Structures are given as C-alpha cells and as structure tokens.
C-alpha cells in the first residue's frame, strides 16, 4: 500500500464534509430529509467498519449497539425527562458499557463462532426489549415527544424537528465521527488493528497484546454505533424494536461491503447508494429485502472489495 500524504487525505475528507454542507442549501426538501437520515446511518456503518474493516471481526450483532444508543437516549428522554445532551450521553454510555461486556465475552471466540455468538447476544437484547414492553413499547415502539427534542445552547433553543437543525446536527455528528475514524486509522493503534486482521499470531509474537487491542476496537465500534442510535432517537423521534432485530445487524454489513470495507468514506457511499436503491425500487415493489439479498450475494461473489476498495486498488492507492 502506498503511503498517503496526510494533507491529501485530510483535504479529501474536509472536502466531502464541505460538499455535504453545501448540499443542505440546494437539495429539495425530500432528499434533504433523506440525506440527514443517511448521514446518521452512515455513522452506524462507520462504527461497524471500525471492527469489520480494520480488525477483520465480522459481527452479526451490531444492531444491539445501535439500539443501546437508541433506547439509552430515547428512554432517558421519555421516562426520565432528561435534556437532549444528557440523553445523548446516556445513549453513548449504554453502548460503550454493552460493548465492553459483549467484547469481553465474545472475543474469547473467533471466526464463525464470533459471528454466531454476537448474533445470539443481539437476539437476547432484542428479546429483552420485547419482554419489557411496559417500558420499551415492545414491537410498537415509542415516539419521543416533540416538546422534549429541543437542544438548549445558552440562550438559544434549537428544535431538533426543524429540518435545517436536524440536517446540521446529523452533519456535525457525521463529521466528528469521520474525522475521528480517520485519525484512528492513521494512528499507531490503527496500524496494530490492521496487523491483527492480517495475521493475529504474528502480531502477538511481535509483543502486542491483541486481546486488549481488539477489546478497545469493539468498545470504539460499539460506542460509534450507539452514537448513531442515540442521534436517530433524538433527531427522528422514534424508538422501536425493529432497530434491534437481526436485519439491522445485516444492513451495516451490507453498507460497508458495498462502499468498501476498511475505507473511511466507504460506509457513507455504501449507505447512500443502498438507501437510494431501496428508496427508488420501493416505488415499484415492496420486496426490498429481495434486493438486499441479491446485493449481498453479488457483492461477495464478484465485488468483495466494494466500491471504494476497488477504486483504491485500481486508481487511488493513497485513499485512506
């Protein structure tokens, strides 16, 4: 792999953020709202990519981290009446704690067993949400009241239901996570993660504690996914058990595979692309899961590097 000049990489990422900022003023209303949602979900995909792309750990249970953030933030607002920043922090804390516990357990396994164990823990999490329907709303879900979704900054209060505020909040979250991901990937720690992916035994032999490095990656990944979930609850005002189902563990995998695993911008591109494909086709057919299924198979068969992975391999070797 060619060494990236840091200026080029940072310029590209800042350019993408600037483009998203500019789009806010030109997009028609419908696509404006859609893009806000896609940015929040792209954060979910970036969190997933942290673990799948860079450490090579394929989890089938990331819906639990997303929904830990979703319910952590949503229930704090609904039942405890917390303010928006406090609820967001609660969502992050729930995700980080859950990721720590799951990481400690699931990292004892590897390969296929890791996939099944994460899927089972996520299933337990999903069933727990259904079991405590009195607080979580069960499979109906809960609506976060509009009156509570107000961000108070000093003297000004911003209603998160306002489309512009919503778009900008999503963009701020997206930008922070994107830059954090870029910094992590370019750091020594990021290189250790890639080394673990390429050859764990050798990395161990070189004196790195692979378990604690992997555990840290699970926690970072889980926290990012929880941030996405918490933002989703606060910005879009709905908390529901579908977000904890297996399907929402598969979707980030699909987005990352499509955009390109182990690329910083791949998750955004994958999410954007898939979301629009589903959005356009749902006008013709309700069977959007069929498209998800076909996309998954075609990707693993013919396109395992995804869009940006292929671009990096063919043309732009410096892409982070």
């Amino acid at each position, binding site marked *: 792999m060619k060494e990236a000049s840091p200026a080029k990489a940072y310029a590209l990422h800042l350019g993408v953020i600037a483009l998203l900022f500019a789009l806010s003023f030109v997009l028609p209303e419908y696509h404006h709202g859609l893009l806000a949602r896609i940015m929040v979900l792209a954060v979910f995909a970036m969190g997933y990519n942290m673990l799948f792309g860079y450490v090579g750990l*394929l989890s*089938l249970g990331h819906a639990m981290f997303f929904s830990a953030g979703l319910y952590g933030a949503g229930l704090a607002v609904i039942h405890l009446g917390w303010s928006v920043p406090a609820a967001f922090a609660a969502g992050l804390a729930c995700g980080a704690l859950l990721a720590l516990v799951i990481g400690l*357990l*699931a990292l*004892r*396994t590897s*390969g*296929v*067993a890791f*996939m*099944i*164990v994460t899927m*089972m*823990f996520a*299933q*337990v999490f999903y*069933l*727990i949400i*259904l*079991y405590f329907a009195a607080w979580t709303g069960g499979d109906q879900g809960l609506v976060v009241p509009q009156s509570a979704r107000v961000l108070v900054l000093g003297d000004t209060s911003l209603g998160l239901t306002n489309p512009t505020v919503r778009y900008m909040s999503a963009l701020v979250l997206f930008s922070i996570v994107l830059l954090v991901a870029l910094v992590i990937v370019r750091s020594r720690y990021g290189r250790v993660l890639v080394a673990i992916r390429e050859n764990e035994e050798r990395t161990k032999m070189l004196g790195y504690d692979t378990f604690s490095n992997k555990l840290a990656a699970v926690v970072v990944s889980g926290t990012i996914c929880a941030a996405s979930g918490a933002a989703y609850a606060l910005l879009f005002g709905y908390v529901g058990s579908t977000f904890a189902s297996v399907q929402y563990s*598969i979707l980030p*995998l699909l987005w990352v*595979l499509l955009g390109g695993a182990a690329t910083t911008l791949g998750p955004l591109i994958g999410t954007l692309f898939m979301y629009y494909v589903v959005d356009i086709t749902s006008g013709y057919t309700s*069977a959007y*899961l*069929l498209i*998800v*299924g*076909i*996309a*998954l*198979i075609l*990707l*693993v*068969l013919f396109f*395992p590097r995804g869009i940006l992975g292929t671009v990096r391999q063919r043309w732009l070797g410096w892409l982070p």
Partner: protein
Amino acid sequence: MAFGPHLLLAALEGLVTSAVLALTALGLSLVFGVMRVVNVAHGEFFMLGAVLAWAISAAISGHPALGFLAALVLAPLIVGLIALVSERLVLRRLNYNPEATIVATIGMLYIIQQLALTFYGPEARPVEPPFSYRILLPWFGYSGYKLSIIAASALLLVATWFVLTRTKIGLVMRATQYDSETAQAFGIPVDRVYAGVFALGAMLAAVAAVLIVPISQAHYLMGQDPLLLSFIVVIIGGLGSLRGTVVAAVLIGLSDGIISVFFSPTLAKIIATLLVAMVLVFRPQGLFGTASR
C-alpha cells in the same frame, strides 16, 4: 388436569418438537461438519418444505393421505434441487470460505423469504393430516399423528446414522469431513460430495417441515425459530456430531415444551439463547463434542 398428566402432555409435545428439531438440526450439522459452512438459509429450506407441502397437497384431490404422501416425497426433492443449484451457483464460487458463505447464505435467506411472500402470500395455511386417529390415554386423548411424527423422525435418524457409518457414501462423507485435501488426493470427488451434502442437509429440513406442517400451518416466516433452535442444538451437541445433535435436540425440545407450559415463551427464549451463547463462549466444542483438531 392434575400435575402429573399435565407434565406428561408437556413432555409429549416436547418430544414432537424434539423429533422435528433433530431432523432440522441434523441437516445443519451435516453441512457444517462436512463443508464447514454455516448455512443461515437453513430455516428457509425448512419453510420452503412446508410451503411446497401445502401447494402439493392442495393440488392433489382425494384422500388427504394421498396429497400428504406426495408432499412427503416431492417437497424434499424440490428443496434439495434448489439447494443444489444455489450451492453450484454461489457457495462453490466462494471456495466455501466460512465468512463469505455466511454473508451469501444471509442473502439467500432474504431472497427465499421474499419470493415466498410474493408468490405464497402472508397467510398461514393448514395442511390436512393424513389420518386423524386419536389415542385415548386414561387422562386425555392424544393425536395419533403427532406420535407418528416421532416414529417417522426416529426412523429417518436411524437411516441417516446407518448411511453415515455403514455405507460407502457415508465413508466418503466422513473422509471429506476429516480431511478434505487427503480425501481429494485419494480420488474422492470432494466437490460433488459438498454439493450432495448441501442438498441432503436442505432435504432433511424439508422433510421435518412436511412432517410438522399438518399441526402447525405453513407461513413464510416460519423458518426463523427452527433456524435459531437448530443453531442451539448443533452448538450444544457439538458441531458435526450426530449423537450429540440427537441428544441435544431431545433435551432442548423437552425443556422447550415443559418451560413454555410453565413460563412466558419470550423469557424462556431469552434464557435459552443466553445459555447457549455462554456455552459457545466457554465451551466452544459443545457439551458433548470433543475438542476440534
């Protein structure tokens, strides 16, 4: 009803579940044991079996037993064929890479499920049992058909065991499972063995589904629970071990039957799934399996 007969009824229901579960899980276990492929679409082959059983028995008029027998033969064959095609088209091209095949079988799961929804619809439809004889016990009457499920499943399990341990085909399969490269060197067509095993695994699930459909109805989402339970059984029983699979299926089926009579089914599922995840974390070779080589 007094406690004793109540428990007996729960145990009988549990045994019926175990019988179906053992067949389904055996299919999953064979595929994993020989090919090292975790087939996430296994539950959908089960569902396809049930849906096809409905279609076939609805197409054949006359005595319900006729339609049922036709379904029992035809549905597994069709499902086996579909599995064979998907193995050739997808899994073989992936070189049976464990992680890529999981992603691909997830894709198959969605495709099969959506096609079933499109062509079969969201309704749950019943299939008439081939006979409706009730066995009268001193405390309650019990469906003779349900008892025959247990018998049929036991028969099929013994047959599979016989094929695996006493015939040339079984020897070839075991050789492939033990060391596929050496098997290939000895002239075993490993590639074709894989195709056959994948089809066989799907057919076992389909047979199980045809047996259960007269008492539980065909529905396009019915593959989810058997998939999860089969995973549980295969993990508890030790991956790729036939005896372990059967013992675990009886254990899980019985406890599922008894627990769900006395507790909330959601709570029972939470506890069962959590326990199994813990088994996988702390004893990955399963409770009955031996450590992997």
